[in-house]
């Protein structure tokens, strides 16, 4: 489909969806206005094209080529049978499992959390007209001119809703797992998460995205996080869907005064993956850290877009993204730090490092600083390089085969991002996944 046809296709699917919602047994009591607002923005703005500066290095044509219908939900019994031994990833406690975007209570481990803390289904919260949802949902992730966010907002049904009241600290991470499986043909899901931390609250949230099988599916997800005054939020996203999958995800974070936010984004899967992280430092003294690792082989394409807005004075941001690319994979890093006029004493540092394992691999890196205040400390840098030949020979001279040696060196390269993950978020298991992935892409020289 071309962009016009694709837009028509998605608008028609929305019309079907709206009809179904109207006849549903328990329709959401509100949200209709948000949906219709979002779909009309989508109708006006449509999909981004490569002429759009923010999509310069990523063509979404492969996604538009496939007529993705909204993925069906399946009965728990059938799902359990099909999931079989699939490893849903750590942590196992406080784990909410969403199948094709909808919560499966049977597969989830009921969270054991302090009183007043909410960690459950967004759909359920919407059905009971939860005022906390109403006052935050869709207020931050901008769908005015972002077609995919608009589609997610129009089609959203379920996802995680996490609310931590003032002063409450949750030690154990809350794990949201999104499993995509094909019910009948190529399907799309629109997971939608909302995380709200009231003043002084602390929490960590892991989002894992995976595929049940190697099949064509599309995940278009949005997470909004509100990190109130003096709060701490640690957010971990592990994207390990199959190499046939399409994944577009947006994380929008609003940070209050003296709050701290850390993101770890690990993109390991997908035929085409695009991760947007957008952080607004909206209170003085905020501190934001973005860590990222992307590993791509074969013909995978992984695009990382980050934007940090220093809106208020005395905020700090640290960003480290590392990429390992093999085969004929393409990586993109586009990180923007925007220092607003009022944001004096901003302290920002951004680093992007890339390791290319093959002739056919490619990366576009575009670090950007836009500074509208003179009293700031900002720096950025990016590198693209190959495996160190002396180190490679050293390892081989000890009997380690070429591809295992490359994998080991790339693990060393990737290791410092993984090492930053908190233990409780299942770092050891993630290390294993990263190692497997690196081994898988190291052997592919991209020649064919």
């Amino acid at each position, binding site marked *: 489909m071309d962009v016009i046809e694709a837009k028509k296709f998605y608008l028609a699917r929305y019309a079907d969806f709206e009809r179904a919602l109207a006849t549903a047994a328990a329709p959401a009591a509100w949200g209709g206005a948000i949906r219709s607002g979002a779909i009309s923005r989508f109708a006006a703005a449509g999909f981004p094209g490569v002429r759009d500066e923010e999509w310069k290095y990523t063509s979404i044509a492969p996604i538009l080529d496939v007529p993705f219908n909204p993925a069906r939900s399946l009965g728990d019994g059938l799902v359990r049978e099909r999931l079989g031994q699939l490893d849903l990833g750590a942590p196992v406690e406080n784990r909410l499992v969403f199948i094709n975007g909808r919560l499966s209570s049977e597969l989830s481990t009921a969270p054991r959390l302090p009183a007043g803390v909410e960690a459950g289904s967004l759909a359920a919260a919407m059905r009971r007209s939860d005022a906390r949802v109403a006052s935050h949902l869709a207020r931050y992730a901008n769908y005015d001119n972002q077609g995919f966010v608009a589609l997610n907002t129009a089609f959203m049904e379920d996802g995680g809703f996490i609310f931590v009241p003032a002063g409450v600290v949750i030690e154990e991470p809350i794990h949201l797992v999104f499993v995509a499986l094909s019910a009948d043909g190529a399907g799309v899901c629109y997971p939608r998460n909302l995380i709200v931390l009231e003043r002084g609250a602390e929490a960590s949230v892991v989002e894992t995205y995976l595929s049940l099988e190697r099949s064509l599916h599309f995940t278009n997800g949005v997470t909004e996080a509100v990190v109130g005054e003096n709060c701490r939020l640690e957010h971990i996203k592990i994207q390990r869907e199959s190499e046939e999958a399409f994944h577009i995800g947006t994380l929008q974070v609003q940070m209050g005064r003296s709050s701290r936010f850390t993101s770890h984004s690990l993109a390991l899967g997908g035929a085409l993956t695009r991760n947007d992280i957008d952080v607004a430092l909206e209170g003085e003294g905020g501190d934001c850290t973005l860590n990222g690792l992307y590993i791509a082989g074969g013909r995978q394409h992984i695009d990382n877009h980050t934007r940090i807005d220093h809106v208020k004075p005395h905020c700090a941001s640290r960003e480290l993204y590392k990429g390992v690319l093999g085969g004929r994979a393409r990586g993109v890093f586009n990180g923007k730090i925007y220092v607003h006029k009022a944001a004096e004493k901003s302290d920002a540092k951004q680093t992007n490092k890339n390791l290319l394992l093959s002739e056919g691999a490619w990366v576009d890196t575009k670090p950007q600083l836009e500074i509208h205040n003179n009293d700031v400390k900002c720096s950025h840098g990016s590198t693209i390089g190959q495996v*160190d*030949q*002396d*180190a490679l*020979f*050293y*390892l*081989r*001279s*000890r*009997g*380690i*085969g*070429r591809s*295992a*040696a490359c994998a*080991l*060196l790339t*693990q*060393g*390269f*990737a*290791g*410092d991002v993984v090492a930053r993950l908190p233990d409780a978020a299942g770092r050891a298991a993630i290390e294993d996944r990263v190692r497997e992935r690196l081994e898988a892409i190291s052997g592919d020289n991209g020649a064919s």
Partner: protein
Amino acid sequence: MLVIKNLHANVAGNEILRGISLTVGAGEVHAVMGPNGSGKSTLANVLAGREGYQVTEGAVLYQGKDLLKMPPEERAREGIFLAFQYPVEIPGVSTTYFLKAALNAVRKHRGLPELDAMDFLGLVKEKMRLVEMDQALMNRPVNEGFSGGEKKRNEILQMAMLDPKLAVLDETDSGLDIDALRIVAAGVNALRGPERAMIVITHYQRLLGYIVPDYVHVLSEGRIVKSGGKELALELEEKGYSWIEEQQPGA
């Protein structure tokens, strides 16, 4: 065990080895001495299979097989070990993990089962005692931030772990103080045996006081210009390399 016949090799288009012939039998220790730039490391690297060294003439047979056809990892698995003159630092890869990967690759090739964590740790501890190496180094990235002496001990530790048939030690003595030299030499001597051959490359006679060779060869401008017994090393020490060079035709 090793037969080098008329070996010529180029580096970056320059001929560095110009016809080396050398035969090393099982259980023998051969010292290769020579001034800086004479081609000692080049010879070691050619034997270990480093890329960028072009053999233009000659042959190397190792246990009857054409060594030059094998990639470096296969040479290592077949029992060749090179102790590097300049051990390489590998950020982000722990020494333990590296040693385990190397040991298991070699064991697999030799038809031995992989060692589990317990057995591996036991073996490392035993071998570390041999070179008096600090166990804290095991959790650090390979050679990163190691002192010169620690790096060289780490080379001998790896040799002890991998149990090679032919060890090539490239200036393992350089940069070591006398205590470290004694420890390293003791480690090497402990590994001497009737099955194992060694080529000990050194610039100075000093090391050969500790590791007593069966044969000594003098390398100059890419050729072996003199061979003899261990007394040749002493003679060299006394008279200097200029003595050999003066004996050369055309010098």
